[in-house]
């Protein structure tokens, strides 16, 4: 037998006694199926990068019809606000029936750091999505789109790739521009913030959400094409790890 673990959905089985839930279902026969099967979740997000910060993270358990983003589709205005400026308020407002956590890290999630929150799959919210802008990037974000939450108790772990919202040219110039449509990168927390870049590119020809090609950066902090440092602000996928404990 050969268990292929390369995509690393690790599962630790636990024994779970469902008898109590079943008996309460019998007692309250009006209870809907989804409520009977509701799971309490502990969710941890780890920033795996060495030099990239995550802006406030939006984590949601939602139904099968809700999507915060989809690769290969044009970003919504709400996604654009998050990806260009780190503003999750509009995306969060879309999640009317979801169980959600806004900004569990209470600000930036620094490189290698983790943050945790708790959600419930009550009301058929069986899908998990996670988004947060990556700084410094023009419109890069970490993205989990509708990961199906297992009903079996256990600890599940998987890694996350970086996406580009396709809404802004990756000029890599730190201008403070974080509003939708404003060019440039809003901020570069941490080390080696440059100035004087002439811009890596002025166009964004792929307007669909796609896997981010990474920052380029350069080796001149006061000139060159990019305001980013090529030894600090690059990354390779994956950029985050999500660990979900289904209780």
């Amino acid at each position, binding site marked *: *037998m*050969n*268990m*292929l*673990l*390369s995509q*690393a959905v690790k599962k630790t089985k636990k024994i779970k006694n469902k008898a109590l839930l079943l008996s309460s279902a019998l007692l309250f026969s009006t209870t809907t199926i989804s409520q009977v099967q509701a799971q309490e979740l502990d969710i941890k997000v*780890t920033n*795996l*990068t*060495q*030099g990239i910060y995550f802006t406030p993270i939006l984590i949601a358990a939602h139904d099968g019809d809700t999507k915060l983003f989809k690769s290969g589709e044009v970003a919504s205005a709400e996604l654009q606000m998050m990806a260009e400026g780190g503003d999750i308020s509009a995306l969060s407002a879309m999640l009317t029936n979801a169980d959600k956590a806004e900004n569990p890290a209470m600000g930036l999630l620094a*490189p*290698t*750091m*983790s943050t945790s929150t708790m959600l419930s799959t009550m009301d058929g919210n069986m899908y998990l999505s996670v988004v947060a802008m990556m700084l410094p990037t023009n419109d890069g974000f970490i993205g989990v789109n509708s990961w199906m939450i297992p009903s079996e108790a256990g600890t599940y772990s998987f890694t996350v790739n970086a996406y580009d919202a396709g809404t802004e040219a990756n000029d890599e110039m730190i201008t403070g521009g974080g509003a939708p449509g404003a060019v440039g990168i809003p901020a570069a927390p941490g080390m080696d913030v440059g100035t004087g870049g002439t811009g890596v590119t002025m166009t964004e020809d792929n307007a669909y959400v796609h896997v981010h090609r990474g920052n*380029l*950066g*350069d*080796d001149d902090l006061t000139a060159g094409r990019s305001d980013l440092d*090529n*030894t*600090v602000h*690059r*990354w*390779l*996928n*994956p*950029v985050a*790890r999500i660990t979900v404990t289904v209780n």
Partner: protein
Amino acid sequence: MISMNKKIALIGLVGLMLSACGGSSSSMMEEDMPDPMITYSYQVTVTNLTYAQPMSPLALILHNEGQLWTVGEMASVALENLAESGDNTDVLADAIALSGKSGSGLLLPGMSEVIDVSYTFTDVNNAPMMLSLATMLVNTNDAFTGINALGINNLAIGESISLTTSSYDSGTEKNSELMATIPGPAGGGSGEGFNAERDDIDKVAMHSGVVSVDDGLMVSALTQAHRFDNPTLAVMVTRTE
């Protein structure tokens, strides 16, 4: 197998001595019988998937607790040594290791190496639970890759686990890519290995890749050939005994 044969020989010897003494009670025989030895053996096949990053001699350990590194925490000095210089001695001697095995030498790009590691014990509760592997990408400042505490306790004889590995940065040496800091062949053979100073973020993270002189780092001793992407190793672990 060798240790098993030795054990059998020893039991035979004890038996002869006891019978030579004469009059020994059979209950004493039983008390002197050593517990049966149990051996768990694993065959680990490792393939270097990179274009031009030789891997330092592999460090392979079986253990029941702990892990070799944790993202967000400081690298141990043993791991720093491996990640900066390729020296696996201290990782193999780590206190958590029940049993360790070194690779035979550099694992060159495209090459595979098969390493057998085993652990012999008497108490059935002492079966090895985890397997870890670490090796340096030698044409870097402090990049390493490997397996961190892979659960092997449910692996039956003949079963395998296959996986690929990503690369990490020990966070202990700035990624200057200067010739004097690269211990591998790209450093010209005189690049520095271990240095106790920690002038990077001093936390283990995933590696962001090398930049190289061909991609905009003019002081770099590395070329486009030394760039890598994840994954960097393919590994198959098979329990053989």
